[in-house]
């Protein structure tokens, strides 16, 4: 009952003109940037971070979150219509979604994708409402020991599930942790790695780091494809309604996709992308007619679309209730909250419960806005996506520069972006992922604080990490995460 009252208050707060406006800006920009191949929600969030410094905490977080889940919708549009995934998590939607479009069922595919996304997202929100208070009250008993242990699992987990070499993901985490140590040490005041720049005393700025890695490096290295000629924008509203058979076939895949996505979204590391891939292969395995997959099966579109949107919503559960982000995008949103002076975590649910419920209500409003934006306006998105990059690049460059300059009215931030951006480019050429770096950067200082406190209380005794049951479980997980691939390799080698 209390939950309903809280949620009601949340809706009241969202349905003000100001918050509706920021929600609308967020989801619109998210859809646009999500639909653009090669550019993801990370860039959108990084671009708007400086603007949020002028806004109240509530409005800014509503807007940033809107970019994030809006990107999931936008990614599917370009996946279906032009066979180029706008975001990594919509890669699977190209398989059957684009085939449907080729068979003249583009309208049905878009409708099914938008509806599956909306319903999957809604169920993710309901789960968030149900579980967040429970997890938060459980986490209230967490001490420094438990926090450190859970963060360590989150960090290593996120690094080890990213695609590509695990060694390189660990290198990225390490770089992030090192960047996190820059600036004055909280307890002793010693200035670490400031290289004589007074601007670095408060640490390297999150906004500059994010803009460098995901703005500067992304527009230089983005795999841009010429898509303007392939775009088919004639999609009529009345062609959108799926047939009765298609409704029936979508039912099972929808529920299975949503459940899988909701679960994977809440776990550290496994975000929407992995959820969509797993949902697709799960459907293919369970299907009685696996041969139709990849040839325009609506099951192969509905399952991953509901999975990635459910995951996008449940990813907020650990971020908001524990203060531990599962993916880099969540880490950036967490960072934005910290910049606003709000420390996400179990205490946020009691101290800033208004903000929490307003945010949840905004998810629903945002998802509804996205449904409205997507179904009738799909043609407009396709036209926008065909904007050539020679127009887009300068816009992004100018927004980044003015954005960072506006924060402190100094060019120092621009130079930091150039430096971190070049690092980002080098990392891309040697295939080191940038996302784990951001996770390390955000979690590093929190982990150091908690480790310091835990060891201070235990008088330097490391066994506290094993005697606390929660921490002991986490430490076992850490061992599994690190050792599992080694064991698998040894077993494989001896089998050969």
């Amino acid at each position, binding site marked *: 009952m209390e939950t309903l009252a809280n949620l009601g208050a949340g809706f009241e707060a969202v349905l003000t003109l100001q918050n509706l406006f920021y929600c609308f800006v967020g989801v619109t920009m998210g859809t646009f940037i999500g639909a653009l191949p090669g550019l993801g929600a990370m860039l959108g969030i990084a671009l708007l971070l400086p*603007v949020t410094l*002028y806004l109240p905490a509530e409005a800014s977080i509503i807007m940033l979150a809107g970019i994030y889940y809006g990107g999931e919708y936008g990614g599917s549009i370009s996946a279906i219509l032009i066979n180029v995934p706008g975001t990594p998590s919509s890669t699977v939607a190209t398989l059957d979604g684009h085939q449907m479009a080729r068979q003249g069922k583009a309208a049905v595919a878009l409708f099914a994708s938008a509806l599956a996304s909306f319903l999957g997202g809604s169920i993710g929100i309901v789960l968030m409402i149900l579980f967040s208070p429970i997890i938060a009250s459980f986490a209230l008993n967490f001490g420094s020991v438990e926090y450190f242990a859970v963060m360590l699992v989150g960090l290593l987990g996120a690094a080890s599930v990213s695609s590509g*070499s695990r*060694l*390189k993901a*660990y*290198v990225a985490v*390490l*770089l992030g*942790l*090192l960047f996190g*140590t820059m600036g004055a*040490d909280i*307890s*002793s005041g*010693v200035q*670490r*790695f400031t290289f004589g720049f007074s601007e670095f005393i408060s640490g390297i700025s999150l906004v500059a780091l994010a803009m460098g890695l995901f703005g*500067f490096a992304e*527009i*230089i*290295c983005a795999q841009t494809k010429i898509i303007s000629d392939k775009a088919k924008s004639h999609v009529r509203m009345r062609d959108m309604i799926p047939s009765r058979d298609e409704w029936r076939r979508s039912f099972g895949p929808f529920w299975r996709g949503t459940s899988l996505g909701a679960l994977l979204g809440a776990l550290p590391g496994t975000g929407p992308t992995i959820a969509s891939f797993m949902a697709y292969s799960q459907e293919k395995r369970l299907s009685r007619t696996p041969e139709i997959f990849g040839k325009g099966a609506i099951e192969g579109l509905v399952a991953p679309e509901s999975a990635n949107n459910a995951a996008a919503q449940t990813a907020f559960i650990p971020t908001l209730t524990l203060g531990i982000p599962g993916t880099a995008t969540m880490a950036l949103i967490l960072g934005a909250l910290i910049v606003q002076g709000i420390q996400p975590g179990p205490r946020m649910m009691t101290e800033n419960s208004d903000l929490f419920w307003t945010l949840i209500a905004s998810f629903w409003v945002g998802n509804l806005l996205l449904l409205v934006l997507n179904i009738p306006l799909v043609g407009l998105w396709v036209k926008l996506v065909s904007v*050539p*990059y*020679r*127009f887009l*690049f*300068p*816009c992004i*460059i*100018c*927004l*980044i*520069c*003015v954005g960072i*300059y*506006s924060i402190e*009215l100094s*060019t120092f931030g*621009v*130079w930091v*972006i*150039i430096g971190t*951006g*070049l690092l980002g*480019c*080098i990392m*891309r*050429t*040697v*295939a*080191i992922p940038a996302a784990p770096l951001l996770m390390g950067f955000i979690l590093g200082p929190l982990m*150091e604080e908690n*480790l*310091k406190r835990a*060891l*201070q209380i235990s*008088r*330097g005794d*490391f066994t506290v990490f094993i005697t606390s049951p929660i921490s002991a479980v986490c430490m076992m997980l850490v061992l599994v995460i690190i050792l599992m691939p080694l064991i698998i390799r040894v077993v494989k080698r001896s089998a050969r």
Partner: protein
Amino acid sequence: MKTDADEKRGDPAGLLFGLGLAASCVFVALQSWEYGLGSFRRMGPGLLPFMLGLAGILLGLAMAWRSVRSPLLEGAYLPLRRLIFIGGAFVFFALAIEPVGLMGTLFCTTIIGAFADADALPTQTLALAAGLTATIWLVFVHLLGLAIPLWPNFL
């Protein structure tokens, strides 16, 4: 045709990065030593970075070792044209914003950035530069009230 010799050529970028990382981490570890390690009971400011430095040396060497034996990384290249023009646009902004002011800087930054794409046309680019400068002025200066000097300070 790919021969065995090509396969074993290794990945020079990865090798360089690994060695570079290891070398920087030697610096990190030495520097952290000076910050004071403290004890586990009372961690000093240098303890965590020192550990990270040690870990970084190991990871860097591991990466270098692995790249010597791995095949050449396909498809990972740096688009030079974009790097020059986009990087150039950022550098220009940083150098020009204070002496030249917002309007002129944005106008020129846009033009430099547009040429990151080889298809950029002069007239379109000029129109874009004018439009973008006006829009950013509207949003950041007019609506958000940002106090950036708009015109060159010698005027």
